[in-house]
């Protein structure tokens, strides 16, 4: 027995020693501070790990939430989709190919250096030059160069007239400190891992500690002029990773976290709203869920077939059951109600009418035969990792069956889904966009031949002409009129079948208040101004 006992003991001791080396030591200066006395710690739960700290790279939600607290955007978004000031106080065009921003003069980086137009111009030029893989780069097609003409004014030169690019770059452009990023060479390769002196940010908080896969701690930056108090109310923010949403919900109910950043599954919203100690906040949705029919397919190239499919969907059932009433109809238009300037109330949604679908198919020359089924079959792809889409895909299949049309469902995990989408490997595409804030840009990408998200493969000269004209129109009213015409065409020809726009709900503890929700899951209640304004509910004495 002795050698075994000795072996076991040795193993146990070595494990303990290894662990001993792991115990973290408090960072310098932290021991004197007590966050609880000076605003408290706001603990936020998320389901995906934060893996990348360079805001210019990647497209992960969790990454953006954390970097958003450190690196400011020029513009924010209001509840109607229009842009609002954030770092930039004013913006516009001086002529067709020149845009400008006037930024605040009172922002400083956490190492004391002032945030100036130079940082803004440098960030833009670096992104254009290095093309890091992310949404920022995607906006830079018509951008040529940026210049800081004063301490607070940035002018951008365009390669061709583009009436949306100033606002798009303004919203998607996060500004990074030149003095930290420039020495690292290409911004597309810089991991920004905080080696050496840690992180430098101008937001309400700065990252101070990373425990990979577990928690990300940010400390208050004492100079944040975007809130009335001049600094955030909470002393510290901690992002915690819970891969399983069920565990996340348990943690909120037990009080271990204060906010859940990812939006709630629809069926849980009502329940949580009724739970003691938990509040549910509504966040305006800025995206929509839709299906597109691949017009390269001979059957789907025919308008009657697309119309038949559109009338075979039970839109109300989807919104009532799958979304538990949390989705709104867009009247089948890509110009959602939330974009109040653009939305056209006079339109109407495709009516759920399986009989009409059958008539349309028959008028197109298809014969249902004795079994009631038309001799067509379409393969519809949808992302499995999105439970809501997975659920309504089933309803769409059932609705089409009622109209005698066969839809074959193919749900795949995210990467295969992305690959199939890129290659056009589908007959019907089901998916959703989280942020479609600028109709102009979205139409260009969705309906121009060769557009990056033209999943329906449409090439309609009339539509193309309308969109291109709108791109060059700087007069708001004229632009809106053109866009509405384009939307009508899209709806009539079923180039896109927009099912709903979903309002999102997030949950937080009743112990915290003061959140400022902004549209879309990207901002929701975890946007910088909201986190900076959030404070503990005062205890009754």
């Amino acid at each position, binding site marked *: 027995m002795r050698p075994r006992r000795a072996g076991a003991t040795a193993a146990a001791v070595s494990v303990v020693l290894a662990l001993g080396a792991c*115990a973290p030591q408090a960072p310098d200066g932290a021991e004197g501070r007590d966050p609880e006395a000076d605003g408290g710690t706001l603990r936020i739960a998320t389901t995906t790990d934060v893996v990348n700290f360079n805001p210019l790279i990647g497209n992960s939600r969790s990454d953006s939430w954390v970097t958003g607290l450190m690196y400011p955007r020029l513009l924010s978004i209001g509840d109607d989709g229009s842009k609002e000031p954030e770092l930039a106080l004013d913006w516009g065009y001086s002529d067709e190919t020149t845009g400008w921003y006037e930024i605040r003069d009172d922002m400083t980086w956490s190492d004391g250096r002032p945030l100036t137009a130079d940082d803004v111009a440098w960030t833009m030029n670096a992104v254009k030059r290095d093309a890091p893989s992310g949404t920022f780069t995607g906006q830079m097609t018509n951008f040529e160069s940026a210049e800081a003409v004063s301490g607070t004014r940035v002018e951008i030169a365009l390669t061709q007239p583009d009436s949306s690019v100033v606002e798009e770059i303004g919203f998607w452009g996060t500004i990074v400190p030149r003095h930290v990023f420039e020495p690292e060479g290409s911004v597309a390769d810089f*991991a920004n891992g905080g080696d050496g002196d840690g992180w430098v940010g101008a937001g309400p908080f700065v990252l101070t500690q990373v425990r990979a896969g577990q928690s990300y701690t940010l400390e208050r930056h004492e100079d944040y002029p975007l809130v009335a108090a001049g600094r955030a109310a909470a002393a510290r923010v901690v992002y915690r990773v819970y891969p*399983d949403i069920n*565990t996340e919900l348990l943690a909120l109910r*037990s009080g271990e976290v204060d906010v859940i950043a990812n939006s709630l599954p629809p069926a849980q919203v009502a329940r949580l709203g009724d739970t003691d100690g938990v509040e549910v906040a509504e966040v305006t949705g800025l995206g929509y869920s839709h299906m597109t029919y691949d017009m390269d397919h001979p059957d789907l190239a025919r308008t009657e077939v697309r119309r038949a499919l559109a009338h075979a969907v039970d839109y109300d059932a989807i919104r009532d059951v799958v979304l538990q009433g949390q989705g709104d109809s867009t009247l089948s238009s890509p110009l959602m109600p939330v974009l109040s300037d653009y939305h056209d109330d006079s339109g109407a949604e495709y009516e759920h009418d399986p009989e009409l679908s059958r008539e349309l198919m028959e008028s197109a020359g298809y014969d249902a035969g004795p079994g009631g089924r038309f001799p067509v079959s379409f393969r519809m792809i949808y992302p499995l990792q999105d439970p809501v889409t997975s659920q309504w895909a089933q309803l769409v299949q059932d609705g089409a069956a009622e109209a005698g049309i066969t839809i074959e469902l193919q749900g795949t995990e*995210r990467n295969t889904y992305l690959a199939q989408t890129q290659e056009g490997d589908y007959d019907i595409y089901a998916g959703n966009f989280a942020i479609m804030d600028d109709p102009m840009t979205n139409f260009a990408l969705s309906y121009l031949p060769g557009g990056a998200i033209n999943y329906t493969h449409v090439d309609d000269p009339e539509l193309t002409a309308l969109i291109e004209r709108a791109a060059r129109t700087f007069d708001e009213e004229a632009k809106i009129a053109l866009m509405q015409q384009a939307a009508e065409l899209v709806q009539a020809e079923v180039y896109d079948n927009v099912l709903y726009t979903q309002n999102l709900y997030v949950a937080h503890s009743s112990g915290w208040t003061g959140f400022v929700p902004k549209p879309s899951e990207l901002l929701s209640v975890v946007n910088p101004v909201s986190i900076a304004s959030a404070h503990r509910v005062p205890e009754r004495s």
Partner: protein
Amino acid sequence: MSIALFVARRLGRGVVTILFAVTVTFLLLRLLPGDPALAVASPNTTDEAREALLVQYGLDRPLIVQYVLYLGQLLQGDLGTSFTQSVPVVDVLLERLPWTLLLTVTALVLTVLIGIPLGVLAASREHTFLDRAVQVVGVTGQSLFVPSIGILLLLVFGLGLGWFPIGGAAGDNVYGAAWYGSVVAHLVLPAVSLTLIQLGSYVLTMRGTLIDALGADHVTLARANGLPYRRILWKHALRNALLPATTLIGLQLGFVVGGAVLTETVFAYPGIGRGIYEAVTQLDFPVLQGAFLLLAVTVVVVNMLTDIAYGFLDPRVKAS
């Protein structure tokens, strides 16, 4: 045979095992559908940008070339750089490995501590009601569904009674001595969950080998010579029975360490299992290759250690 030759042969086998695991992973990743460039791109990334990403990842070259390059890298101790995190794979793995080891070793220790007495109890009372009860409990344990158990434990002990924290490996912003306490508090529920799952097969194996050992000739002889049953049980039979169980631990470790995926996900425990699952969803090839390599190495090392322990314990092995 000499100790040196024994060790050398085991080492050789170990290297072959590791190479096998690495090659299988490598091939699977590249031959099955899935494009890592798409996983990190956004809808408006151009085709050129995606191609550039593939070149950056080294995925544009022929399979053989990639394989040889990778092996060369491995020999130099370089596991590559993560696709999604732009940091060396070694860093990613070393952050996670200690947690998985802590969880699995704790669960293993608990399993052994509870499993041996139960197995002895069942074997010494073979065919009685107690024996059947232990068998049923054992099989039930084997058939439990991990996430259900996990959520149940969290509901009852975490939320309901509030005895343990919900998720995570340690509290944030806890330092020094208090950190150890926090680690233990966070470890309890996941370890209990993992133990409950493993306990079943361990008890059954223990019982089985012990029954066989008790039936062996030299034991019958000892009893015939009048030695008390209890002494025989603990001295002869148990010792013989522990040997196969030790080997079983070694073989099972690969299953257990990888199988902790479900436990780590439910309990938000930042171990290798979860890291693998996340890397799969991100198509992060270098991390996946590195993680499987690490698992293979762990299994080989543990197997070698148990073989050596076996060599010490089993008089038959030593004598030859």
